[in-house]
């Protein structure tokens, strides 16, 4: 993997997360190296989204355990500080923010005006810059809006929560292209320094983005890791029930 001054991009140790009184994550351990892109597989409700939001610091979560990002303990850090250090996330269901324009947040992320317009055009969102963030966006528009924001932010570690759900083939191809670009997947592995963690339900994004590693999450724990293609084939064949049998 890529050379870097830090040995791991992300290291999650014994992470437990309680949301609204319910334990969602139950001792997660995870490591992502610089330049490495991983997929996170798992059934609905297994805790995948919670893990991503815990990594960026959802303030409503009760957390124990430790999260290291580029070697620094960020467990208690406010979300925006984590973003400044190079984290970025796209949401599966981003909320609509009335009165705040897409352009406002893109400008906030330090993109210059011309470039913002260019990126928005490329993502088919040229007319959306002046619109309220996510308000009345279609499913595909939401995904593209999340992507264009990540393009502006250019994070070192990209967390993607189901970038492929509810997206048609053309949009999926565009989204895959942008993810590869942000992650610099076209560079030779040893020159890559961006990392990714992608939640995918059925693996359709993997037609376009070829991850290095896969994790399977069940009941708030990471139970398995391996080659992404092999994992997804097993899951397609035997379902997550197969995973449960395999680990027990």
């Amino acid at each position, binding site marked *: 993997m890529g050379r870097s001054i830090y040995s791991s991009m992300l290291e999650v140790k014994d992470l437990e997360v309680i949301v609204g009184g319910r334990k969602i994550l139950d001792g997660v351990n995870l490591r992502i190296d610089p330049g490495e892109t991983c997929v996170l597989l798992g059934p609905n409700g297994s805790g995948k989204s919670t893990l991503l939001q815990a990594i960026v610091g959802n*303030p409503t979560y009760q957390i124990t355990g430790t999260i290291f990002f580029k070697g620094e303990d960020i467990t208690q850090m*406010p*979300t925006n500080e984590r973003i400044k250090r190079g984290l970025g996330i796209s949401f599966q269901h*981003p909320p609509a*923010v009335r*009165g*705040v324009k897409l352009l*406002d*947040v893109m400008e906030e992320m330090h993109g210059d005006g011309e470039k913002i317009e260019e990126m928005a055009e490329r993502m088919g969102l040229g007319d959306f810059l002046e619109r309220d963030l996510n308000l009345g966006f279609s499913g595909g528009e939401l995904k593209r809006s999340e992507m264009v924001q990540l393009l502006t932010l250019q994070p070192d570690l990209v967390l993607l929560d189901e970038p492929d759900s509810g997206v048609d083939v053309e949009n999926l191809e565009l989204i895959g292209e942008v993810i590869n670009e942000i992650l610099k997947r076209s560079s030779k592995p040893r020159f890559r320094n961006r990392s990714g963690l992608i939640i995918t339900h059925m693996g359709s994004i993997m037609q376009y983005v070829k991850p290095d590693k896969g994790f399977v999450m069940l009941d708030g724990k990471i139970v398995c890791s391996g080659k992404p293609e092999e994992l997804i084939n097993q899951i397609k064949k035997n379902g997550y029930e197969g995973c449960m049998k395999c680990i027990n």
Partner: protein
Amino acid sequence: MYKLSLEFSKLDKKLREKALKAVDKKALYGEDVDLDRYGEGEKDLSSITNLNELDENERKALTDVGIQEENRSGSYLQFDNSVLLELQIQEGIEVMSIFKALEKYDWLKDYWWNAVAVDQDKFTAYSQLHEPMGYFIRAKPYIKSEFPVQSCLYIKSGGTVQNVHNIIVAEEGSELDVITGCAVGEKTEDALHIGISEFFVKRDATLSFTMIHSWGEGVAVRPRSAAIIEENGTFFSNYVNMRRTKSIQMYPTAYCVGKNSMARYSTVMVAREGSKIDIGSRSVLKAEGSKTEMISRAIGLGGEAYIRGDIEGEAEDVKGHLECRGLMLKDEGFIFSIPELKASLQNLDLSHEAAIGKIAEDEIFYLMTRGLSAEEATAAIVRGFLNVETKGLPKALDEEMRKTIEASLSSML
């Protein structure tokens, strides 16, 4: 004081009789005000030729409500009940004190208490019975104001009732933008502002009226205003009040009497602790094809806010929509949203939406994942909530409204 014409004196006598019958008539809304507590303040302050002659505090108070030296097509400045400045700059746009205008134009008496009823309540009655001062602003036919005309009503002396009666006329085919800033002196406690404003928007004319209120915690404010809009005429009313004010009660009314006329209101208010705010917008659609839109935003910061809205459809093919949104930023005080629609025939389309809520945590978190701090995210959401679309407003006035909102943002969070 200017002399009244004989004819006007006769009219005045009739009005006086009507007013006398209403001196004890309480207003329908808002807390009652004891009018006997107030004196008439300064009536003979000497006039000035430019704003630099004011002292620094006064100048700052005026700047905060959009009053400036440059880029205006005319200026009117009233302190208490004295006219300090009446300045016409653009050819075809008249700006003068109301009594000068009544003396100059005989026809103006037909406009006096034409849109607002003199016996509406004790405040209108008081105004008529106590020699009001005020301004007359008029765009002559087919004249377009290059810059906004500004007027400023300032209360300097404590214990004063500032009694204002204004007439604003946009003649046929004209386009007139007016900004009014209202403010008080730093040490002005316990005052009352009564402001009668009558707007006349003639055929094919457009009138935008932007009012920025910056009264103090001891000031009771009772504007009484109405607009009469003729065929294809458009009236825009924009209002901002971000400061703590003892009490404000107003319910401006737009009468769309001409075919395809239009009235649009944008109202932005903050109810701070100790404020009692009761602000409505009413449109009466009396002519075929007339339209109205109303947008109100209220922030609850411990004070009391009533947001009223009323659309009355009385003609074929009229259309109206009313939107009230409230944002509660404290657990004290209240926002009471009262939208009303009244239809008296079949072929029309009236609607309203009202919503009151808090700032959603998931929205703040989302914005934080875009790099904003919690405070910045909150400010962005509040700013977004208050930045209502101000269609038809010249850019400079739109910026003025935004500037006023921006200036008070930090004090809300």
